[in-house]
């Protein structure tokens, strides 16, 4: 398990994207980051993933236990990014294929079973529903076996019922991984956050998460209260 320390401000040319902030993603737990659109949540995630080429971080991103970041991270976004010409199983095996490794079909099929898609494993993405596609994306993320998982609003395009299901499935299967979930949904943060950060133009604010382990029931009093508090905070920040 790996903890990740993020510290610094982001710049594009001479323009500041966000001021100096710092936070830790605790090993093996869910860190949820909330904030209004355009405040730089996704930028933070892309900086950690090493995907930013134009925005520069004046600061550092390091693993507490040491070692390189590359190869430790997997990514899941709002768009499932499944390759349309591959079946569900082949999509799960994409990492193997792109790195030139021998595809581990047994493991892929096991993960497909875990996310409940055994019947659909030979289908191509167009034949799957939005929720099913995100399940394939989750299986693909799990297939990578990376200790750090970055989630960029992965459930925001799903309808409420499927979203709740996916949150539960993700909480169950991503257990033990160090997770950063970027979301604009206070309810999601209140359900899943073991640490909740609210990002605004002024910096980052640590909000005390509801008591109890995750995943929390959506109708629990403390969860609802936290949701209300987060929403208030978001509105104040704007």
């Amino acid at each position, binding site marked *: 398990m790996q903890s990740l320390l993020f510290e610094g401000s982001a710049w594009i040319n001479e323009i500041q994207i966000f001021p100096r902030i710092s936070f830790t993603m605790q090993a093996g737990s869910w860190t949820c980051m909330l904030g209004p659109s355009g405040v730089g949540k996704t930028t933070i995630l892309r900086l950690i*993933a090493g*995907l930013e080429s134009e925005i520069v971080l004046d600061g550092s991103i390091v693993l507490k236990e040491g070692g390189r970041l590359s*190869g430790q991270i997997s990514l899941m*976004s709002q768009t499932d*990014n499944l390759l*349309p010409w591959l079946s569900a199983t082949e999509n799960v095996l994409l990492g193997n294929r*792109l790195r030139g490794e021998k595809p581990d079909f047994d493991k892929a099929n096991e993960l497909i079973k875990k996310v409940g898609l055994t019947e659909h494993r030979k289908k191509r993405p167009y034949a799957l529903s939005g929720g099913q596609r995100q399940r394939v994306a989750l299986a693909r993320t799990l297939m990578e076996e990376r200790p750090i998982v970055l989630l960029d609003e992965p459930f925001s395009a799903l309808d409420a019922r499927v979203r709740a299901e996916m949150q539960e499935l993700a909480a169950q299967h991503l257990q033990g991984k160090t997770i950063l979930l970027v979301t604009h949904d206070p309810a999601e943060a209140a359900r899943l956050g073991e640490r909740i950060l609210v990002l605004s133009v002024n910096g980052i604010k640590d909000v005390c998460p509801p008591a109890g382990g995750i995943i929390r029931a959506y109708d629990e009093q403390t969860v609802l209260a936290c949701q209300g508090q987060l929403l208030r905070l978001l509105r104040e920040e704007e």
Partner: protein
Amino acid sequence: MKLFLRLILVTVALFLFWHFLVVFADLPKFILPSPLLVMQTFVSNFSLILKHAVVTGSEILVGLLAGTVLGSVTAICLAISPAARTIVRPMMVLSQALPVFALAPLLTLWLGYGLWPKILMALLIIYFPVTSSFFDGLMNTPKGMLDLSRVMNGNPWRIMLNLRIPAAVPGLASGLRLAAVYAPIGAIIGEWVGASEGLGYLMLLANGRAKIDLMFAALIVLVVMTLILHWSIDRLGNSLTAKMSP
């Protein structure tokens, strides 16, 4: 099927118009022969026309194949190397300012009267559309998928092979549709400049001897060949595009 029916209808209407034009305007057959005469000439000269059609057909096909391979390889090299882009792209644009037709006499001078200058003409004329449409496709891989493959530490060549090329197939297909129409033009121009066989040669020969009916028969065969080629490539492109699209 509906398209096929429409095509037949349009063709029949065109032939009728042509026929009545000849009849009512009382045009001599060395200016515009009637479609019936053209058809008779076609039947009586079938083996002659076929022989020349095979030559032109092979020039077109080989040119198309070679141009596609060369164009695709260029597009992939350009897509993978920024250095190649800065050097080769301006050269490609410059080469487009040069009329390919003007090269035909040179090619004949250098390569003789055989198949090669014609194949090279067909190749040159389709090289740019194939390269440029495939290159555009390669540079427009969905960003999310590219990000994902980078986080997965994918090997650049494998990303090219497994992600960027399949995602660019619709682009390549639209380039090939253009190529299917351009390649015959290249081959015919090549034949006009200097050849001893091929439909272009036959047309010039027939024209010179006022055998306009034979010229028309050869022309119609060329049109039909081009249409079949375009149709097959269109079908192939559509089915590949459908396979690669969400």
